[in-house]
């Protein structure tokens, strides 16, 4: 008999706990929703990291998703949440599909640099586009679900629940993907590309697919963030935004599909409090944490769970 999949059980449990927590802690809804949105981006980066690729330009898709939501609301009056989210994901994946033909040829720091260049191109364009508010960006019209407004103070829970559902869905799909043959190519590509090619798989094709998935997730995350925050500006595409995502990815590690969301939540909570109490040293804390994780926990915070479990079972 097959053992029940522990990750799926954990995901369902996490979903229920999160939905409950949302009811109990209405003040935290904003933070929760934001973390879930950014967690989606990190999930995509985690997929790339499993393949040995680090993108310092994921802000490109994140920003595209956010601006898609903002522009559709601003210029076309489209407010339906589901449609907006879909647009974000589609734009993210479409641009990733186009760029993927190029990106799939690059590795290591060149992959990081080229992705950084592309996101900075978008930043440079947005900063000078007066119609989209230049450096100030613009406010996103409050979205609606089936004609009823959601988001904002009163209806925040609806948006939060939607974010939970999306994150859950994305995590399940990615979990299944990781176990599929194409998903299992990731660590193999990281370890030795040439042997993967000898086995008969196309590394370039595999990376292209992963890049598109990561782009779709980042676009989706950006769309969700835009609706949650209600404001967008070009900084979404700046390299420090992308750097933050990379940081959370390293922090979370590649152990489980839950890790990106957990890591993202931890990061947002720490950031909120650190900003409040010590605005001038919080990056110092973040940087030190990153160093500690790189040196002592190369597989991310998630490896602590692994370690505990292994000790518990032996």
């Amino acid at each position, binding site marked *: 008999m097959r053992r029940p999949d522990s990750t799926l059980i954990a995901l369902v449990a996490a979903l229920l706990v999160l939905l409950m927590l949302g009811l109990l802690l209405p003040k935290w809804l904003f933070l929760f929703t934001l973390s879930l949105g950014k967690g989606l981006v990190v999930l995509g980066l985690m997929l790339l990291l499993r393949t040995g690729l*680090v993108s310092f330009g994921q802000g490109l898709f994140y920003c595209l998703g956010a601006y898609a939501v903002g522009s559709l609301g601003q210029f076309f009056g489209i407010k339906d949440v589901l449609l907006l989210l879909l647009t974000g994901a589609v734009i993210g994946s479409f641009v990733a599909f186009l760029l993927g033909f190029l990106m799939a040829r690059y590795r290591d720091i*060149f992959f990081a640099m080229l992705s950084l260049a592309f996101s*900075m191109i978008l930043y*440079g364009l947005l*900063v000078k586009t007066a119609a989209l508010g230049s450096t100030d960006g613009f406010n996103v019209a409050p979205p609606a679900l089936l004609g009823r407004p959601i988001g904002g103070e009163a209806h925040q829970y609806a948006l939060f629940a939607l974010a939970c559902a999306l994150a859950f869905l994305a995590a399940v799909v990615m979990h299944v993907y990781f176990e599929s043959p194409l998903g299992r190519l990731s660590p193999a590509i990281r370890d030795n590309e040439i042997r993967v090619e000898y086995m008969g798989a196309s590394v370039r094709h595999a990376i292209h697919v992963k890049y598109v998935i990561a782009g779709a997730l980042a676009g989706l995350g950006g769309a969700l963030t835009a609706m949650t925050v209600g404001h967008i500006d070009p900084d979404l595409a700046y390299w420090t935004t992308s750097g933050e995502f990379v*940081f959370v990815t390293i922090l979370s590690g590649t152990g489980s599909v839950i890790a990106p969301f957990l890591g993202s939540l931890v990061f947002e909570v720490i950031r909120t409090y650190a900003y409040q109490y010590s605005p*001038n040293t919080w*990056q110092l804390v973040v*940087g030190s944490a990153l*160093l500690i994780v790189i040196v002592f926990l190369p597989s991310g915070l998630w490896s602590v769970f692994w370690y505990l479990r292994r000790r518990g079972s032996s």
Partner: protein
Amino acid sequence: MREVVALLIDGIIYSSWLFIIALGLTLIYGVMKILNMAHGSLYALGAYMAATLVGYWLGHGHAPMASYGMLAVAAVIVGVIAGPLIERGLLRFMYGRDEIVLLLVTYALFLILEDAIKLIWGVDAYYVSEPYGMLGNLDLAGLTYPVYNVVLIAVSAVAGVALASVLRYTHHGKLLSAVIHDREISMAMGINVARFYLVTFTIGTMLAAIGGALTAPTVSVVPGMGVQVIVLAFAVVVVGGLGSLPGAALGALIVGLVRSAAVHYLPQVELFSIYAVMALVLIFRPKGLFAAAEVRKI
């Protein structure tokens, strides 16, 4: 015609500024295979140190002309303190790991340094514009330029030529080439690789700090000034080819001239143009214009 001349001069001034910063970045990468994300913070450190020293110097009524010396002193201080501290205290534990891991380590370092600067100097802006104006102006083809810019170009040229000559003509330079070529064999031949790494990183830090110190009089020194510089420097070294000195020079020239052309003719695309060039070069020459071919390892 005058517009073209102005464009060229502006471009060359901007290129020299870029070149000094990119020089340190490419040197560190060439020798140590570390793409140093904290380079912009080292640049900011240089600027802050220069602002403090020059402010102190002029505030105490010393000879104003010697404030240029203070700029140099600031760069040396930052190089000698921050360079060894970072290399010995952090980076030496990371050698041999993936380039991408090293990139993340220096990203962590960037975050730490950004806040360290705020802790030391506070968040208020510093202004030391005296050295910028003191040298007067120069008329060139009917246009007026501060002589300070000539100093900038000269320093940048001297730094590039000096570094290239040291690498090519001196005993230590040749040893360094051996280290770059094969670290392990060099160690086996009795070269003290650790010391070469230490000196290289210190010089690289000093070059970043010189860039910052020279910039300090021309701008207001504020937190976060290194954040935009680092991506510019990346663009330059990536265009030229990572780890190549002539590459850095060519990259700086290309990026500088493209930006100056954009500023003159189409200001909307200023930022865009720089990164578009970077992306274009990466697309057609994935390892940059001056990169050497690499042996594929199985």
